[in-house]
């Protein structure tokens, strides 16, 4: 979690310094869901993320150096600078792709699950999405398909209570988003997304269900975003009360307090320090990496191009 937090804080700093351009969506405060969910997976499981993908990629084992390079549009980035933050992809570690289209990754995850099922494999697929995706038609179509065909997929809804810029209440009258999945007979769980052990436990059940051919699950993790919708979001305001509350529920702090008796403060501090150091180094290397060349531009539109 510290690795993710450090990565995103660094990304935020680089963005402010103009070293990174484009739309940058951070998940600071949502680390527990990424770590808890991906921790329950095996390397060959397939993860599909959305426009807030950094935490998921790192949790699935992506290299932060190549991630920084991608954010900075360098040739050494995972996508050679063609994807950027929103289209991060590291299929080699099972982080298949991210999409800038809300809910756009849901059917992709279903398809991956269908392929695994059709080939008699036990690999499962996971789709991360925010509460905003729940109001899309694609979400409804995907619930139906996942349930109909008992696909080995886990639908992970990170409900941070805000769809893009507005509170969830402005987007739907449905209070418990998991109710949508209940309608389709999909097992659901709604739980505290800032509690790492809780997230992990819920995910373990879902993974077991999917791997053993008992079909999809819908997990709704209640969490919060400590940043705006995207870096530089002028509408992002929080009063002090909200801020203190948010910081109290900061998943890293909570997990640290849990480990404190076993590890002790110095060890815990060490973890944070090591994470920051690794991130600094990775960022430095990434920014020193070469820009893409003209020849790269026309490559990979279609195979062999």
């Amino acid at each position, binding site marked *: 979690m510290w690795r993710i937090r450090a990565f995103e804080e660094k990304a935020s700093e680089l963005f402010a310094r103009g070293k990174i*351009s*484009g*739309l940058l969506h951070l998940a600071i405060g949502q680390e527990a869901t990424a770590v808890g969910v991906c921790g329950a997976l095996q390397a060959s499981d397939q993860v599909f993320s959305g426009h807030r993908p950094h935490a998921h990629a790192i949790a699935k084992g992506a290299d932060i150096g190549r991630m920084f390079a991608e954010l900075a*549009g*360098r040739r050494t*980035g995972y*996508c*050679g*600078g*063609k*994807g*950027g933050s*929103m*289209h991060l992809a590291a299929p080699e570690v099972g982080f298949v792709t991210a*999409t*800038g*289209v*809300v*809910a756009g990754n849901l059917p992709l995850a279903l398809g991956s699950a269908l392929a695994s099922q059709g080939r008699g494999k036990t690999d499962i697929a996971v789709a991360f999405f925010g509460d*905003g*995706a729940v*109001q*899309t*038609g694609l979400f409804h179509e995907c619930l139906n398909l996942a349930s109909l065909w008992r696909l080995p997929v886990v639908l992970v809804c990170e409900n941070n209570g805000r*769809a*893009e*810029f*507005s509170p969830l209440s*402005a*987007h*739907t009258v449905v209070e418990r988003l998991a109710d949508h999945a209940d309608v389709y007979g999909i097992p659901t769980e709604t739980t505290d997304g800032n509690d790492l052990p809780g997230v992990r436990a819920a995910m373990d059940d879902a993974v077991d269900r999917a791997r053993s051919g008992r079909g999809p699950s819908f997990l709704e993790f209640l969490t919060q975003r400590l940043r705006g919708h*995207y870096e530089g*979001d*002028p*509408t992002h305001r929080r009063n002090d009360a909200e801020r203190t509350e948010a910081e109290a529920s900061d998943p890293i702090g909570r997990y640290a307090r849990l480990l404190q008796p076993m590890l002790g403060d110095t060890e815990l501090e060490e973890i944070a320090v090591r994470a920051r150091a690794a991130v600094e180094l990775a960022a430095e290397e990434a920014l020193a990496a070469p*820009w*893409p060349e*003209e020849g*790269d*531009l*026309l490559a990979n*539109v279609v195979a062999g191009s």
Partner: protein
Amino acid sequence: MLYAEAVVEALRRSVEGDDRVHLMGQYFLGLTPYRTMVGDLYREYPDRVYFPPIAELGYVGAGIGAAIAGLRPIVDCATASFTFQAFAQILNEAANIHYMSGGQTSVPLVIHYNHGVRGGGAAQHSHSPQAMMWNTPGLEIITPSHPADVIGLVQTAVASDNPTIWVDHVRLFDTEGEVADDIEPIPFGQASIRREGDDLTIFASSWMVCRSLEAAETLGAEGINVEVVDPRTLVPLDEEAILRSVAKTGRLLVVDECHQRCGVGSEIVAVVAEQAHGDLVAPIRRLTTLDVPVPFSAPMEEFVEPTVGKIVEAARAVVDGR
């Protein structure tokens, strides 16, 4: 006046001029810092605004239905790419309804989107789908490039009984231009000659007009007098203005931000090649966004889009008959 201010002014006039005008959507000024300017308008007319969920298919369709029922909604799709979610309602319903009903039913609707390369938008947020819309009969398409035009054209669009696509560009928001207090609605199908010249005609719309004008200055210094034709509306298209200019200059460069294949440029070249073959002293050139998805990385992004430098270079090539 700033273009961004003109957009807000256009919306204000629409809302104040006709109570049937309601605004659906909140990103008329994209994610730019100007965003908050629209907010004041929303606060003044809370009951005339609707903030939809992230469900383009549903709320754009709702806009069409509302128009059928007698409202004159202005629906915002934010980034052009999101119109793909609503294609079924825009191109299968809105564009066809008047025709399918044999003229019984009209759809007085305006759909706004911000298109094109915006800087780091990458492949999923840098689309210019207007050529695809143009290939679908039944939609009027406006492509303003000047603060005065956006106000005048939007007034006409709101008054029109047809579905109108309002093509905007976030990079226009920072541009400035003279705006008279008493702007009249601008009739559709009337191009504006943004710069006169007799050596070469440049056809450009939306943001590309600004870049072409900048290029024209450079070329002027080299003694190449460029005429810049801004169609202002693609549907209906002022073919005469284009043909008149080409008849004068004998040379045409089409600058467009759509992809080249089957883009706006293709249609313009075809029209001129069919109707003014004899007037041409040199082959027409197209300068468009290259036929690759728009890459994220800045240097690559600049390489795919039509830049001032590339316009100057292409213009020289046409004049030299290269």
